[in-house]
């Protein structure tokens, strides 16, 4: 126990570097994922058969294969065609993955915005684009906040897989330090605590945000 405490305290600088990388990976991938998700959500509600099929295909492939396969294809698999640095391979892999889930979240919340909102806007002479941009999306995003927050938390945990393409994010740090010292347990416990704290902080933050956004409801 004393040993664990020493290691926990003694390794903060390295773990903070890992933490910083984990956060960068998660945030960057979330932002890309939102763009991807929004794009495919639009395809899904486009009512154009071929576009819907494309979106379904994307979602099916992502949901049907492990994230690690997606990351490894981007990093190792595509290397001979297109060289992607670790950070971007991991970020894009994570984004590609979350994107499918986010597409479903956004589509769901768009469709939950009462049909009535759409009709009200259309009856005022607003065209489909304008209606989407000014009326539906702002409400859909707000409604999606809890689910998006949850997806972000999943993204943070998933970013641990970036260690397997050589990135020294939180988990990578613990794995390296554990194997170098031939003493894994304290490092894994340390990293678990880091993750738990991030997730806790984020959960609270998302709840706060939710409350704040609810003001106008």
């Amino acid at each position, binding site marked *: 126990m004393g040993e664990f405490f020493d290691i926990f305290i003694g390794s903060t600088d390295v773990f903070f570097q890992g933490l910083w990388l984990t956060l960068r990976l998660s945030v960057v991938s979330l932002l890309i994922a939102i763009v991807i998700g929004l794009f495919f959500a639009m395809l899904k509600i486009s009512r154009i058969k071929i576009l819907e099929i494309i979106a379904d295909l994307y979602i099916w492939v992502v949901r049907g294969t492990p994230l690690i396969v997606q990351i490894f294809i981007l990093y190792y698999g595509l290397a001979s065609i297109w060289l992607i640095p670790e950070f971007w391979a991991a970020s894009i892999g994570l984004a590609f993955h979350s994107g499918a889930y986010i597409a479903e979240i956004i589509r769901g919340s768009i469709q939950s915005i*009462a049909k*009535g*909102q759409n*009709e*009200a*806007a*259309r*009856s*005022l*002479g*607003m*065209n489909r684009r*304008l209606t989407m941009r*000014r*009326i539906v999306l*702002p*409400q859909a995003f*707000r409604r999606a906040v809890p689910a998006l927050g949850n997806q972000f938390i999943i993204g943070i945990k998933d970013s641990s897989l970036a260690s397997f393409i050589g990135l020294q994010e939180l988990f990578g740090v613990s794995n390296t330090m554990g194997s170098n010292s031939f003493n894994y347990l304290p490092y894994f416990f340390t990293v678990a605590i880091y993750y738990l704290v991030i997730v806790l902080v984020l959960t609270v933050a998302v709840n706060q945000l939710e409350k704040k956004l609810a*003001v*106008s*409801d």
Partner: protein
Amino acid sequence: MTKPREMIRVEKLNKSFGDLHVLYDIDLKVNESDVVVLIGASGSGKSTLLRCLNFLEFKDDGKIVIEGEQVEAATHDLNKVRAKVGMVFQHFNLFPHKTVLGNVIEAPIQVKGMSKKEAVKEGKRLLDKVGLGDKYDIYPSRLSGGQKQRVAIARALAMQPDIMLFDEPTSALDPELVGEVLETMKELGEEGMTMVVVTHEMGFAREVGDWVVYMNEGRIVEEGQPDHIFDHPKEERTKAFLNSIL
């Protein structure tokens, strides 16, 4: 006496949802400044007819002529047509993420390209008119049903429509709030707005309506001036309907 200007003319309008034939050969004429009241049992097709007039639903066949121009979905910019025809819904459908004033100025700015300043000025004027001069910056969730419906009316008026359609504007309201909305509508009628109103408020129909149309199972069964329809209905079905709701 000059011939009144014809605002809406419907000829042999038919509409189905899949296998369900909802409107049969509807003929209807609405002149400028007319207040036409549509009555009929639930499911008789009143909402569908109103929604066809605003092109929220598309007719199967027949003619819809708005202000002298026959409108076809294929060839017309329906958004322009809709801007001329305001609509008020049973459930208000206010934009919950915008303030009261935000609701009213949204379409003038975005659709008409009105300047924000002008839109705000006009929006405030309309909100004052419907008696909500003190609620500009409040979100709809904090309003009563009657207030919400009056905002919805102001929002539709902000587009300066030539015609206003109302689909049971008071039937989602608590009884004590119905009056304030009907009052607003009555004023509007008196100012000369052309209106088509679906309602179960027979007092309003009688007092404000110029013409009452009774629909049953997708057909217009009887129409006429309010006194005629209410006091001397000719058709059995009309009598039965009026008995059931009065």
